[in-house]
């Protein structure tokens, strides 16, 4: 049955387009090989080999060749654009939640629009616009949030009434709608032809394309790609790009050195109909009805409609070749809820004749974001896959970013949310992926609310205290597979209600977290922070110190026992990691990084530390349980447990000491917290964890100790204006831009990565500034809560977006953190942001279309601190992470 579609969708156009690039490849070949043009033999070597001739592979080839890389071979096991690319619905939609995804989709749209003119290949590009419907007020809020993002990016978009929806589409039933979002520039394309057009252009630029050639594995030597093995011979290469779509996981595992690409395919169904009696206009907007879980576009006078059901059918769990893509069955019973939703949305379609139900598998990732970037284990091995059914929307932009990454070393935008290195081996169990994608696919249509947690694939990594904390009412969230406590539900509270707190407004844990915060400020709390990534770096001589001095911006040549907060910067001075490093001895360092840095930071250091058997780095994350004692009475608890003087004279701030706690010896105690409150971090060898926890809780009783979770921590750090890597800080943020000059020692006597860039910034000023906003006219009880990604307006003009927000129980106000930029009013050119510029503005934060007045601050409230410290000391601990 699918073969029929193959013919229908693009064979005709394929033939029209195909000879063009084939002729070109042939003519190019004919100079070298006149005797036998077919089949074209593979070259013995190339700079880049791309595997996969779908939208991703062709887009990467297109962009690489445009950027000047010519020695590229693209291999496709079947025919170009024959996989998911051929079957997908061809909707280009910019309505995305994450701003990087939004940018990719916007770029794709613009690229496709001019592609036909550029290549001469008909792409079927049609600017139809799209209408996303809201059946509920919550959905409308969600759409308004997207709309405000789109607007500040300059993408036309408006929130419209149901009546306006009816004017845009003749068939639509609007009686159950509360509103909609209209994006007039969204488009439709023939996805296979877009892919062919990209291939044609790439081929013109010199890219060699070989169909019916499959890659069996990638050869690796000394952690670098050296070539690929195919069924038609070997190609030596420096770079390999895995764009194998749903086969990317398997291909990644085919070599001796496995590359984990966590994605999993699910069946995806859409319906094709015959034309209506009065055929639908080809410029009719695409309808997305997320509450009905469906999308509807016009297709050759009829409609094409598919959706994301609640009960997806994962497939290819055991690997490929159980079923050929072309032989996948239509499953009408499975499609029934979506068909019902379609007929409810467009009742007049009842009499429309069915042409086909297409089963087009799509690949999904564990967090619903695509996967791009270089493998942490194999250099030169790049990946672009796992599009979560938005391959056409992302194709252009994703290909561009990956090409930039390969050519320039890093893309022009922060793509950390999409970086392959956000995953590790722990996300590549087939069982985990199978279960997780069954949750992810329905999420495509679910309401995206703040503080959402995945339910599947949980309890993978846990602290030894998990059961103890769980028994005390802990509610959990997950980070990089690690279970972390959000907050503790006091006995007697209704738990069911708490677990279902999906809201854009004030959540039901508000008071619970409030009391945890209060305890942190007035007494003492214990927070299990074991999920942090922990490395130990040591050497026989000075190698460790020398290497780290070069890789980190702060001065690490401190006396033994000191802790240093420092950024791990890239050449542009941007944060690759933000960590604290304790000097354990002259020659060994203990480094603590955010949880999700485990793979990225390891790869970054591995690639930059010198090859020296006398220099060792070990991941000791699993060896230590980390407890944070936080609050003014923490010092009392600790001193009673250790019989050691913990006074500031003996144990100053930013100090690290091995000591005994209770019966347990060798506990690494550091006088740091991650919130600016006084307190200690205890790094406990895991077998002592339960003992130390019990001792702390027993001893702490008289000081009013209680458990606390990450929500309390978050509120504390944000009101203290502490930035968090991965949320506020990224590879495009420098210490200068977030008021952390004090963590940079520009004159530490030796060069370090990013130094030049920072020096330049110091001289010329910064183009964005991390700023804290206190919402003024915001009613916590009745107004929408900020989240992150809200546009910031200064004197009515857009200047940036928030990166995180929290309610401050101390200020009794919402606090948003974000970056302010300065765009020239006429040219839009980015200008230097000065302190005056920040201070002399009237600010507003746009939450889902509603603007709230905000007060900007560049420095934290010093009066907030319960413990008076010297200002520089405050700033020294001006670091946090989650």
């Amino acid at each position, binding site marked *: 049955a699918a073969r029929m579609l193959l013919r229908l969708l693009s064979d005709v156009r394929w033939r029209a387009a195909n000879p063009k690039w084939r002729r070109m490849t042939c003519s190019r070949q004919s100079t070298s090989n006149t005797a036998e043009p077919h089949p074209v033999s593979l070259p013995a070597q190339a700079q880049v080999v791309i595997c996969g001739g779908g939208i991703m592979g062709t887009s990467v080839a297109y962009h690489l060749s445009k950027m000047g890389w010519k020695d590229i071979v693209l291999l496709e096991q079947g025919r170009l654009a024959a996989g998911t690319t051929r079957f997908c619905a061809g909707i280009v939609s910019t309505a995305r939640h994450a701003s990087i995804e939004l940018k990719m989709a916007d770029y794709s749209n613009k690229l496709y629009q001019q592609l036909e003119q550029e290549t001469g290949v008909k792409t079927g590009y049609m600017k139809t616009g799209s209408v996303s419907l809201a059946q509920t007020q919550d959905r409308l809020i969600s759409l308004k949030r997207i709309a405000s993002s789109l607007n500040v990016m300059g993408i036309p978009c408006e929130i419209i009434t149901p009546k306006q929806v009816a004017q845009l589409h003749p068939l639509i039933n609007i009686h159950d709608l509360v509103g909609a979002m209209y994006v007039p520039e969204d488009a439709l394309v023939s996805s296979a032809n877009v892919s062919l057009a990209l291939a044609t252009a790439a081929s013109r630029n010199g890219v060699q394309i070989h169909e019916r050639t499959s890659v069996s594995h990638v050869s690796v030597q000394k952690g670098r790609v050296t070539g690929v093995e195919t069924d038609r011979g070997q190609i030596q290469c420096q770079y390999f790009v895995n764009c194998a779509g749903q086969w990317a996981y398997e291909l990644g595992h085919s070599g001796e050195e496995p590359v984990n690409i966590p994605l999993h395919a699910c069946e995806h169904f859409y319906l094709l109909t015959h034309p209506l009696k009065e055929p639908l206009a080809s410029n009719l907007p695409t309808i997305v009805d997320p509450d009905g879980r469906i999308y509807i576009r016009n297709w050759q006078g009829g409609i094409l409609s598919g959706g994301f059901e609640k009960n997806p059918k994962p497939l290819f769990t055991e690997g490929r070749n159980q079923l050929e893509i072309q032989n996948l069955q239509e499953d009408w019973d499975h499609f*029934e809820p979506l068909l019902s939703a379609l007929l409810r949305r467009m009742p007049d379609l009842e009499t429309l004749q*069915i042409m086909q139900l297409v089963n087009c598998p799509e690949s999904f990732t564990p967090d619903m974001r695509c996967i791009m970037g270089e493998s942490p284990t194999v250099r030169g091995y790049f990946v672009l896959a796992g599009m979560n059914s938005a391959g056409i929307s992302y194709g252009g932009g994703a290909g561009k970013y990956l090409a930039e990454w390969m050519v320039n070393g890093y893309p022009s935008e922060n793509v950390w949310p999409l970086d392959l290195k956000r995953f590790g081996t722990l996300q590549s169990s087939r069982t985990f992926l199978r279960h997780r994608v069954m949750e992810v696919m329905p999420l495509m249509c679910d309401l995206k609310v703040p503080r959402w947690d995945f339910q599947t694939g949980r309890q993978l990594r846990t602290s030894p205290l998990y059961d103890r904390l769980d028994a005390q009412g802990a509610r959990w969230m997950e980070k990089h597979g690690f279970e972390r406590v959000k907050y503790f539900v006091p006995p007697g509270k209704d738990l069911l209600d708490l677990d279902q707190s999906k809201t854009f407004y004030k959540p039901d844990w508000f008071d619970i977290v409030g009391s945890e915060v209060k305890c942190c400020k007035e007494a003492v709390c214990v927070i299990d922070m074991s999920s942090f990534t922990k490395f130990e770096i040591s050497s026989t001589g000075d190698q460790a110190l020398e290497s780290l001095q070069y890789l980190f911006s702060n001065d690490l040549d401190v006396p033994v026992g000191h802790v240093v907060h420092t950024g791990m910067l890239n050449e542009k001075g941007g944060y690759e990691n933000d960590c604290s490093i304790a000097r354990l001895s002259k020659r060994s360092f203990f480094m603590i990084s955010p949880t999700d840095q485990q793979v990225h930071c390891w790869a970054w250091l591995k690639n930059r530390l010198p090859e020296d058997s006398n220099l060792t780095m070990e991941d000791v994350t699993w060896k230590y349980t980390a407890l944070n004692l936080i609050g003014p009475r923490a010092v009392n608890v600790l001193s009673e447990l250790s019989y050691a003087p913990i006074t500031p004279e003996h144990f100053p701030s930013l100090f690290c000491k091995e000591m005994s706690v209770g019966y347990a010896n060798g506990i690494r105690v550091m006088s740091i917290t991650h919130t600016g409150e006084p307190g200690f971090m205890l790094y406990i060898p895991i077998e002592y964890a339960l003992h130390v926890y019990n001792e702390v809780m027993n001893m702490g009783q008289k000081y009013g100790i209680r458990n606390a979770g990450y929500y309390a921590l978050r509120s504390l750090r944000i009101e203290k204006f502490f930035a968090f890597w991965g949320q506020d800080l990224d590879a495009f943020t420098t210490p200068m831009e977030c008021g952390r000059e004090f963590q940079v020692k520009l004159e530490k006597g030796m060069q370090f990565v990013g130094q030049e860039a920072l020096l330049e910034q110091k001289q010329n000023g910064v183009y964005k500034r991390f700023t804290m906003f206190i919402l003024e006219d915001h009613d916590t009880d009745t107004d929408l809560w900020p989240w992150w990604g809200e546009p910031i307006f200064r004197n009515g003009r857009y200047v940036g977006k928030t990166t995180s927000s929290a309610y401050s129980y101390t200020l009794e106000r919402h606090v948003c953190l974000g970056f302010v930029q300065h765009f020239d009013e006429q040219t839009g050119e980015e200008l230097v942001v000065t302190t005056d510029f920040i201070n002399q503005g009237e600010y507003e934060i746009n939450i889902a279309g509603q603007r709230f007045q905000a007060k900007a601050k560049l420095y934290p409230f010093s009066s907030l601190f319960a413990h008076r410290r010297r200002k520089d000391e405050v700033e020294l601990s001006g670091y946090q992470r989650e």
Partner: protein
Amino acid sequence: FYLTPPQVNSILKANEYSFKVPEFDGKNISSVLGFDSNQLPANAPIEDRRSAATCLQTRGMLLGVFDGHAGCACAQAVSERLFYYIAVSLLPHETLLEIENAVESGRALLPILQWHKHPNDYFSKEASKLYFNSLRTYWQELIDLNSGETTDVKEALINAFKRLDNDISLEAQVGDPNSFLNYLVLRVAFSGATACVAHVDGIDLHIANTGDSRAMLGVQEEDGSWSAVNLSYDHNAQNEHEVERVKMEHPKSEEKSLVKQDRLLGLLMPFRAFGDVKFKWSIELQKRVVESGPDQLNDNEYTKFIPPNYHTPPYLTAEPEVIHHKLRPQDKFLVLATDGLWETMHRQDVARIVGEYLTGVHHQQPIAVGGYKVTLGQMHGLLTERRARISSVFEDQNAATHLIRHAVGNNEFGTVDHERLSKMLSLPEELARMYRDDITIIVVQFNSHVIGACQNEE
């Protein structure tokens, strides 16, 4: 007016009964997992009966459905008595002696059967003494006859059927001083009943059938689909062998009058039955019994009426046809049901519906549009129906109930149509019998693991 779904359910579920064979030490050592049974009346009162019991002195389980005609008296008596006759026929000599000695000396009797009864399945208290005496006479004769051989199940079943029918006939001829009992035994004898009885012991399944109820085995094929295997032959005019048998037993001169309008002597649908002495006794005997009987009997036109062309009685027998089947792991369940079910459903559908119900897998043929012209609306209708079919499975906790729901409510697409179900169930008493017959169903579920293990032992 329409019945609401809960009303429909309360009607359908009024007589449902389930029994699970208890497990011992976490293991079920019986080849039977349990059974579901149910009945839906069309006659008022219902003329069908059902019985289920575990043999306590021998191994095995007995299950049976009984379809009465000309009243329910005979079916009631057979449902109470037949399993005792079978159990006694199966008992070894020593156990019979032990029981007889116990009765003789007034000691407590070894229990013979453990009944699995729905509260609506009653036993006649008044007749129990009479029934017991007849049964005792039977086992006394068995003791006297002691052949020394182990009892063959097939033979035991045949003997039990014949003996019970004989006793019913004799009790009616002898009468009883108690006028109530006297009338009862006559009603039993003058009404009739078919019987379809299963005896399961390990992998040995025996079906003894008299009349037109039916036993059907549900077999799961390797591909997961379901097929039906008949384990009984209907004794009616549609069965050529049966017609042949009846003709053989009577002179050639009667050949034309024996079977008329597909009925025995133009009157009786089943060709074998309990009771129905009007087709068994000589004309003289019938007249004598009716005349000496109570007035009610005498005044009854039906009992006085002698079948036409009644020359060489008996025309009817209660002797069952016995089929022996060795259970295999693929034999998943047995359906015993009166003709009320088989008239409305094909056995293949019965096998599929029960099979899907029991396995919880609703193996519906996938729909393919192919080259057909189908509109979205038509497809939607079809899909919602298919979904309703699945959800109707979840409504029932009893396979027999589920089957009845389908038997009564199925539309032309083979899915349960609530409207139709509601109509059929709300028919007034006097009309109900025109549209449907009494339906009685027992679904026995087998334990494939035990069967597989038994097979290996053999």
